[in-house]
């Protein structure tokens, strides 16, 4: 223990302490994480295999995490669960909605306290794939400068994210990049995320990137890859992944949810933690 304390002190002196001391699971307390209030996922995010007394899991604060996965894998539902848990705790959260896909009635039915949500709506663009200039560099030029409409929308979303994290108003900030074309995501410079990471370092703000494919993650952040199918545990009694329908007759048939899986990984983990995820369809008209 004495050696560890010495090492921690030395790291703190060189401002390297967050990479080792704050992010290890043993140090994750209530202040360091933003729990999702979903036991299995919170434990997996903390790197734990079973509940341990006095330890809480969740998305690490002061870090950039990401939630990725294919369509209908529960990726957006997972983010909403995090937003709902944070707003129920009384925290203010922000959602940078690049292409204006957020649905408030369903979100309220899922438990998000809407008055505590800062919703930054981008432009509702549905045709995103063919509107990228090959020479475009996201975040480099002025938001009102030349370029296609979609490029300007993405630029504005990134700048909005910067403004929100720098203000320190919200404790959970999410950016929805799901419909951003892969070409545009690849062109986002790494410094974009370094800047975000630097802005929230040491603060109680957690940033989550929601995307179709992996974008970025800070050293202490988590990657949650949805839609990985059945957990690797061969003895699992869980049903096979797939879409769940309720009702036997055509007229009573309704969507129940999706059985899927999530792989949670972090920089210091040797392997990803597999979690079975069941989404539950919440119908709001």
């Amino acid at each position, binding site marked *: 223990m004495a050696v560890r304390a010495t090492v921690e002190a030395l790291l703190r002196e060189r401002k390297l302490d967050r990479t080792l001391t704050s992010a290890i699971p043993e140090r994750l307390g209530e202040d360091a994480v933003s729990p999702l209030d979903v036991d299995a996922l919170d434990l997996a995010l903390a790197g734990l295999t079973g509940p341990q007394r006095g330890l809480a899991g969740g998305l690490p604060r002061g870090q950039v995490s990401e939630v990725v996965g294919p369509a209908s*894998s529960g990726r957006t539902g997972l983010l909403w669960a995090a937003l709902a848990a944070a707003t129920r705790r009384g925290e203010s959260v922000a959602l940078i909605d690049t292409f204006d896909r957020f649905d*408030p009635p369903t979100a309220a039915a899922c438990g998000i306290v809407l008055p*505590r949500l800062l919703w930054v709506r981008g432009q509702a663009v549905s045709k995103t794939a063919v509107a990228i200039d090959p020479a475009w560099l996201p975040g480099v030029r002025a938001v009102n400068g030349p370029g296609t409409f979609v490029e300007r929308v993405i630029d504005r979303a990134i700048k909005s994210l910067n403004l929100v994290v720098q203000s320190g108003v919200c404790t959970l900030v999410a950016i929805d990049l*799901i419909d951003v074309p892969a070409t545009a995501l690849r062109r986002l410079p790494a410094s974009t995320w370094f800047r975000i990471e630097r802005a929230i370092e040491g603060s109680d703000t957690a940033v989550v990137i929601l995307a179709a494919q992996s974008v970025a993650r800070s050293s202490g952040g988590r990657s949650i890859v949805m839609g990985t199918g059945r957990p690797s545990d061969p003895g699992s009694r869980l049903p096979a992944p797939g879409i769940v329908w309720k009702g036997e007759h055509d007229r009573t048939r309704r969507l129940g949810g*999706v059985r899927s899986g999530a792989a949670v990984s972090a920089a210091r983990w040797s392997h990803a933690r597999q979690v079975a995820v069941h989404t539950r*369809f919440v119908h709001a008209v």
Partner: protein
Amino acid sequence: MFAALCAPSISAAAIIDVARAFTPRFEQVGPLVLLDAGGLSRLFGNAQELGAHLSQALAKHTADAACPERDPRQVARAEGRVEARVAIASTQTAAALLALGRPGLTVVEPGQEEQALAPLSVSVLDRYEHLTGSLRPQAASSKPQAASPDAGSGWHHPRHTHHASRPKPRAQDNRRLDILTKWGIRSLGALAAIPGPEVFERLGDGGLQWQALARGVDARPLVPWVDEVPFEAALELEWPIEGLEPLSFVLARLFEPLSERLEQADRGAAVIHTALRLTTRRVHARTLPLPAPMRDAKTLRTLVLLDLETHPPDAPIDTVRVFIEPTPGRVVQWTLLERAQPAPEQVSTLIARLSALMGETHVGSPQLVDSWKPGAFEMAAFQVSDRSASAANDRDGETSPTLAPETRASEGAPAVPTAPRGEHAEVPNAMRRFRFPIPTRVQVQEGRPIRVNTDRQGFSSGAIVDAAGPWRTSGEWWQEGQAWDRDEWDVAMTDGTIYRLVVERGVGQWFLEGIVD
């Protein structure tokens, strides 16, 4: 040792004046004034003598106020009419209850509080609770100095404005007193004699608090009043200054100590009055109301300078005087168990910047509307609010018509999906809604969609594996241009994507409205 003063015929301000003449450490509790009498024996003698002094001072002060001509006969008559109640005990609770329950002077020896309180009626506790509970809501106004009844005397108590320490208002009729009366417990002695656990079992925490009061035990320490000095500063310049740049240095010198004092007093500036005496002997006065209480010296200086930039003085400045109207400091952290709320300045700055970037209608908080129209919402201003936000949302959750019956009723649970403590994680399904639904071509067989074709890249086309529907909704047919009449389908594609398809019944056009994600 504590003394309690009470005189029903005298105003609280008059009693405070009397208390002030004896000690600077006193506190007002309704019409009662509690004094910390520790250390007064060297000036006024023992407790009995101190009590006599207090009674006499109370009577004399009242008589002087009633007879400004100071006619000795009238003064003596007025002194005789004053019903002064003075109690001295080693706890403030015992002193207060005795002053409420017994007329005249009562002095209790240390350790004898319980015996002295025993004969008093239980209704004294109700009265005492009423006094302590009814005093605080009076200070709920935004400007407590003006609203306070003793504002004119220049006194201001921090607890009057401390929202966090304010308890809930007392209920109209005290059920606890009725219960005790039905039990036949009429005196404080009888209440104090009941074993504590049994009181707790039957009356809860409130019962235990009453029993502690009946035994003369203090629930909290005395919180003395504090003086409030006006937040004012002035600087007479040796040489007149022209222009705003040199004035900024002068303002910084004035605002920095004021800002420190505001912080020490837990106050913020609500209004800044700036008076510039010019070389022409005129006074250029400006009043700047602030949107939110603030006390940062640089911010205050900048705001005043910006105001003076738009309304500059027409001559060199000779003297600068600033006066700050204080207001209670913001409570940014309500309890130790909650996170601190961000400052309103931060929020308003962020919203202004985001609005400039994204457009005003694209920044805010969504708000549900009273409509069955799918996806209906409106934007409201984002505010970092306190618990009222959750209360409002809870109400929404209980009464919102937008929740499907399967979410509310069939599960027998609130709208919030709960995560089970199982080996799998349960999260809700989100709906990613396209604000402008995408027109699609749908092949229908026996009334059910079997194939979807869309030209948009990034969206699945092909056979539908399974479908649920139609969910038919219509509404607002009575408003032109607002009506909708449609069928919804939830369809699963071969790649696992779940779409929400909509067919507009009037025109028969299919749309891709969203993705269940």
